[in-house]
């Protein structure tokens, strides 16, 4: 998984046997933005969800909408956890506002309730830089996630590849899934996909094409049209070459303006300021002061992101990318529309409400990022059956890309030892790439970061899958995900 090692993983094999064929009982602590959207996503997958929060109004809103149980109280208190059914829960997910509450809840879950999988949102970089405090004998956090960091990494990738709509990484960054809109003038546009094969040094596989928002299963003779959203999978170092085939390249990004200096804006500015010229606008003057103290090269401006005069004075028309990252959807939309009209090349807006995302995507705003969608994948990987390393939710949750590990032998597995064309994948699912350990001496562990010992194999119809391969599967319709998972499962006896 691509998230900078900010995560630790539970012993997967243990869980597969445990949860086989049953619904997961999940306790979610905190009904904030992340908590609610996770609950929403997991409920739809037929799990038993209990949400704990101290704010009854939030819980009521959630319960009105979704089929779940709510408990009101402090999530770090044993009595509340017991009331939420921690005693027989399979997974606990601490996503309250407070890192400390999340960590204490995980510790309690481990010592009092023996919950097998404990996930906590940890925002503070200080905690994250000392992974030993999450060890089982300490705070017992199996997976520490930092949604802000995930989104920041996501935006950094988009700025690095300004032509792309989405760049998602698998197998520790070895393989990338890139979404790009085909444009007039791109060498591939108007050609059949087979053409890509003839271009040297761009080994890639087109995983899916979305035309007017509906998926097309790519075949060798599919013709790419201008306006198509093309998803392709390639080794990360080949991305630029492949992009060049699909559309003319934009000039590289030099100047970035960020609207909103909250958790995401601050991290993004910090991540970008050594490579790009960064300006960041923050409304709150005190926050702006803190920002300017923390950032070294970025120019911090105190002002309103929807202030036309400020944008004008700060030369918005000369900016390559404008990112609207405030906490307020409406502000983000208005400010990025304004910026776009004033001549910025590309705008990225952070939008929480899914209805807004549908509203603005493919309009004036080039890329709308839904924080929940960007981070849900990390959590989904935990609740999937089969040895699933990474999940990326795509197209507002309609499609999914999974990184699964093939286990077993030809006898016990439905994938190992078979050629790609022989695997009985459901309709709309494509195997895009395989990451294989070069030296066959050891097993590539689920959480192992692939290094030079691992090679990326772009899947073709005759590629044979071996045991312990990491297989990247693109699923156009999320409803078929369980079938894919089932394919990759082996007999319990194997373990």
């Amino acid at each position, binding site marked *: 998984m691509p998230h900078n090692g900010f995560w630790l993983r539970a012993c997967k094999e243990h869980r597969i046997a445990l949860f086989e064929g049953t619904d997961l009982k999940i306790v979610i602590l905190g009904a904030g933005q992340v908590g609610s959207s996770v609950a929403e996503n997991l409920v739809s997958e037929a799990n038993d969800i209990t949400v704990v929060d101290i704010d009854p109004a939030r819980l009521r809103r959630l319960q009105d909408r979704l089929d779940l149980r709510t408990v009101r109280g402090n999530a770090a208190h044993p009595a509340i956890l017991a009331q939420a059914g921690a005693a027989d829960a399979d997974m606990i997910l601490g996503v309250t506002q407070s890192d400390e509450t999340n960590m204490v809840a995980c510790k309690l879950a481990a010592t009092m309730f023996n919950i097998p999988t404990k996930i906590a949102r940890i925002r503070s970089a200080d905690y994250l830089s000392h992974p030993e405090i999450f060890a089982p004998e300490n705070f017992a956090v199996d997976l520490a996630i930092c949604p802000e960091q995930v989104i920041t990494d996501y935006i950094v990738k988009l700025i690095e590849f300004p032509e792309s709509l989405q760049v998602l990484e698998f197998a520790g960054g070895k393989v990338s899934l890139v979404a790009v809109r085909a444009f007039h003038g791109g060498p591939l546009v108007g050609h059949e996909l087979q053409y890509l094969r003839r271009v040297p040094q761009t080994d890639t596989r087109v995983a899916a094409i979305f035309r007017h928002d509906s998926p097309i299963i790519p075949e060798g003779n599919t013709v790419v049209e201008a306006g198509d959203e093309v998803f392709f999978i390639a080794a990360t170092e080949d991305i630029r070459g492949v992009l060049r085939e699909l559309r003319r390249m934009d000039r590289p990004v030099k100047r970035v303006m960020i609207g909103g200096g909250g958790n995401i804006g601050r991290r993004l500015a910090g991540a970008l300021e050594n490579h790009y010229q960064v300006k960041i606008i*923050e409304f709150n*003057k005190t926050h*702006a*002061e803190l*920002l*300017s*103290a923390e950032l*070294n090269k970025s*120019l*911090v*401006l*105190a*002002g309103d992101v929807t202030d036309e005069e*400020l944008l004008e*004075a*700060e030369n918005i028309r000369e900016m390559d990318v404008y990112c609207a990252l405030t906490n307020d959807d409406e502000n983000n939309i208005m400010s990025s529309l304004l910026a776009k009209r004033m001549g910025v090349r590309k705008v990225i807006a952070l939008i929480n409400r899914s209805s807004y995302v549908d509203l603005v995507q493919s309009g004036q705003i080039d890329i709308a990022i839904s924080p929940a969608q960007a981070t849900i994948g990390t959590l989904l990987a935990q609740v999937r059956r089969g040895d699933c390393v990474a999940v990326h939710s795509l197209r507002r949750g309609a499609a999914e890309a999974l990184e699964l590990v093939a286990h077993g032998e030809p006898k016990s597995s439905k994938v190992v030892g078979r050629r790609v064309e022989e695997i009985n994948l459901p309709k709309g699912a494509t195997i895009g790439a395989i990451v294989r350990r070069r030296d066959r001496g050891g097993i590539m562990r689920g959480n192992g970061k692939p290094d030079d010992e691992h090679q990326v194999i772009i899947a073709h119809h005759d590629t044979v899958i071996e045991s312990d391969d990491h297989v990247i599967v693109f699923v156009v319709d999320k409803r078929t995900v369980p079938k894919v998972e089932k394919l990759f499962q082996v007999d319990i006896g194997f373990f």
Partner: protein
Amino acid sequence: MRRVTVVLNVLGLVIMVFGATMFLPLAVAWIHRDAALTAYDAALVITLSCGGLMWFVTLRSRSELQVRDGFLLVTLVWSVIPAFAALPLMFHLPGLSFTDAYFECMAGLTTTGSTVLSGLDHLPPSINFWRGMLQWLGGMGIIVLVVAVLPLLGVGGRQLYKAETPGPMKDAKLTPRMTETAKGLWLVYAGITLACALSYWAAGMTLLDAVIHSFSTMSLGGFSSHDRSFGYYNSPLIETVSSIFMLIAGVNFATHFLAWRQRSPAPYRRDVEASMFVLIVLASCFMLAIYLKARGVYPDFLTALRYASFNTVSIATTTGYANTDFNQWPAFAPLWMLFLCCFASCSGSTGGGIKMVRGQLLFLQGLREMVRLIHPQAQVPVKLGNQVVPNRIVFAVLAFMSLYGASVTTLTFLLLASGLDFVTALSAVLACINNTGPGLNQVGPATTYESLNDFETWLLSIAMLIGRLELFTVFVVFTPAFWRK
């Protein structure tokens, strides 16, 4: 009046501690059986009894010092102690006026190093030792010493420390307790001084000379036991040793302390002020060497580098040693050196002047104003290293600069009015307020301050005092607000 008596009580204590230090030159005199042996007995008795009397009379009003009291006490200490320090000189040299003796001791304690005495080589060893020791005591600060050896000053100690130590930012607490900080600083100071003395000795000085010069080197004072200063030795080796230790003493002692505590050079890397100080001084050495070679003052580059670097390091760090009469050089070189001494040394070092960090802050503040003109809504902090400097401190630096400018201007005009020529007047004021020592022309490195009249001497004594205490500590005592109940 109660507050004044509280201050006088502590002052009496400080005078007694100071008096006790006279045992050292007494011991030196006794070892060498020199002519000044009798001068110390009387001085010791007078100092100790004055201090004891002051302490005893005000004993009943003893209480915790308050924030304001710190300014008064420090100012009083620094103006009264030179008078007591002058006693041995006056007893030994009956011809010396009180004005000159006071000036000499003020120049010692404030680590200025400008002298009114000539024929230094013929003075008894103990007198030269006493002059060097005054500088050494004044370098780290008398009050800091008292805080270190007498923990009874309590909470007030921190206030006193802040009033005495140079630099705009003094809140860096090295240790939780003030006494420990003071002790640590003195230990580091003494340790480096010992290393300096041994190096001098190994480089060829006599033991007594090595000790005296290590005192005046580490305090960046500049007193020498020879009229020709370092020209007497004419040894490139000794000059190199001296340059290295002057550069060490020009760095914040808090940084030395931290490096010693952590046993690692990391604190030096983090100290942006120190790196700028070393960079500017070394760059100036090379620049002046090239200039002197190009103007034909010295025939070859190495000789030019030797004289340029020793004198530049000496003046820039506000020490004031000389190994040649740089007053004879083309005007650019000595004026550039005088310019450096205004701001080169670091805050918290034993050097004087504006301090490098104030220069850096002023420069950054200038940049900030320019960025603000282009981006009116920009939030631009003044950052030193990675640390944001609060606006309050930036304003304090601006206020310091305006006071400094006003002081230099006023004093220069007063000296001009008294009949000195412009270069002499300006260079004397700068050399004294920056605690450097030699100026130019009439007060240049080849001459002394002997030729000045009493009025000018007193004026320059005041300049040294306000320069050492960085203006505010002294000036605040003279504001009506300070005395308002």
